[in-house]
């Protein structure tokens, strides 16, 4: 209760408004932790404010949504509006990843940190150009070397990967064993 006195005491509405403003100006998803630090509030208070904000957006059928992505919060347009938004931005969906790149990415996502020979082992084919594409698109990053013969470089997925695939974190990926059932 002492800390509460030192702090400027904000009403819940004020905190919600502040959280909204900061999520908006941040140029990438902003974490609850960072919001708490900047606003000198408890994480619980921030979490409650974000939740309040998100349901407000939901309730008023806004064209925008508050979403959790790559471990942080972000404002984005609602999925249903994508056609009109895309037409306005005159953008086409970003170049699709090739089958080879997607497969390589799947192996890296589930086996990380993983080396090039290990990827070859699973895919049965050289994956060099796919890895290059994934590095260029920042979907994967180098994750140190494996302490084995030749000390090969290991790869893992990046924050950009989470954003690209709309994931909060890696645990949101379905378990690889779940795909076994689909194999007849």
């Amino acid at each position, binding site marked *: 209760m002492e800390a509460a006195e030192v702090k400027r005491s904000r009403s819940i509405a004020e905190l919600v408004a502040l959280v909204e403003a900061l999520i908006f100006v941040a140029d990438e998803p902003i974490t609850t932790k960072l919001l708490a630090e900047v606003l000198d509030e408890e994480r619980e208070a921030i979490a409650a404010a974000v939740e309040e904000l998100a349901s407000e957006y939901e309730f008023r059928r806004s064209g925008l949504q508050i979403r959790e992505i790559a471990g942080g919060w972000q404002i984005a347009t609602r999925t249903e509006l994508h056609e009109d938004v895309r037409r306005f931005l005159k953008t086409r969906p970003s170049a699709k990843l090739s089958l080879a790149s997607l497969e390589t990415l799947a192996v890296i996502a589930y086996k990380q940190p993983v080396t090039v020979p290990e990827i070859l082992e699973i895919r049965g084919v050289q994956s060099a150009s796919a890895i290059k594409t994934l590095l260029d698109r920042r979907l994967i990053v180098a994750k140190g070397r494996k302490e084995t013969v030749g000390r090969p470089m290991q790869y893992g997925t990046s924050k950009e990967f989470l954003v690209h695939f709309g994931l909060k974190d890696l645990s949101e990926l379905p378990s690889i064993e779940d795909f076994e059932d689909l*194999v007849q």
Partner: protein
Amino acid sequence: MSDDLEQYSFDFHHESAQIVRGEADDELKVKIGDFAGPLDLLLFLIRQEKANIFDIPIARITEKYLEYIRLMKQLDIAVAADFLVMASTLIEIKSKMLLPPDPHSGDDEGIEDPRQELVDRLLEYEKFKTAAGMLYERSTVAQATFTRGQIESDQNNAEINATVFDIFSVFQKIVARHVEEIKMEIHREEISLTDMLRTLKRRILEHGELSLLTFFEEMHTRRELVTAFIAVLEIVRTESVKLLQNETFGDIVLKKSEPPAVAGG
């Protein structure tokens, strides 16, 4: 009719590989030889032959596989080495299966099926192939949302969020650029010290002072830079010019000295 055209099963990929039966003959025609790898092709063939993955008719599948490889070659599609490695693996398994079981090697667990390792690899591979499909679906959904446009405060931060890979690729680019410059240097005519001194004097007189950084940055080659440097030393020694530097890494300015400040050399 529709049976003639067999759509490759991986439907999330628009330019999916397709094998189409020709109309007159029943020779396979490859429309797009775009399988992700030999395991991908094998899975396709197994499914096309409606075979059981746990009991692969190895002779038939090998034959189909080789047929496909030959077609790729005929159509001048570069056949990756990995496809050929798989071909030899298939042939090896096929010949092992033709051998009568070795009576001496049979222990309690029985003789291992020569196909077992391949089956394991196919099953393992197929999980990741399915996972790739899941990623594809997810990216389609994720790309239906958009984040905000540029706002004022972004411009103060137009920098690079660097990773180790950036460090590496930036370094490669510098090295490549450096090699280019050395090549150009060989072809460039060199400027003499006398010319350099004349240029330097004129530049200082123009504004009464000259940023050393600016002057050096105008030099195209290392040799020019060295000449420029010697010219600066020379002019400081022989003319009424001072070198001024305010902070350790700050720019150095060449300034025309006031007459009383001229130091006797």
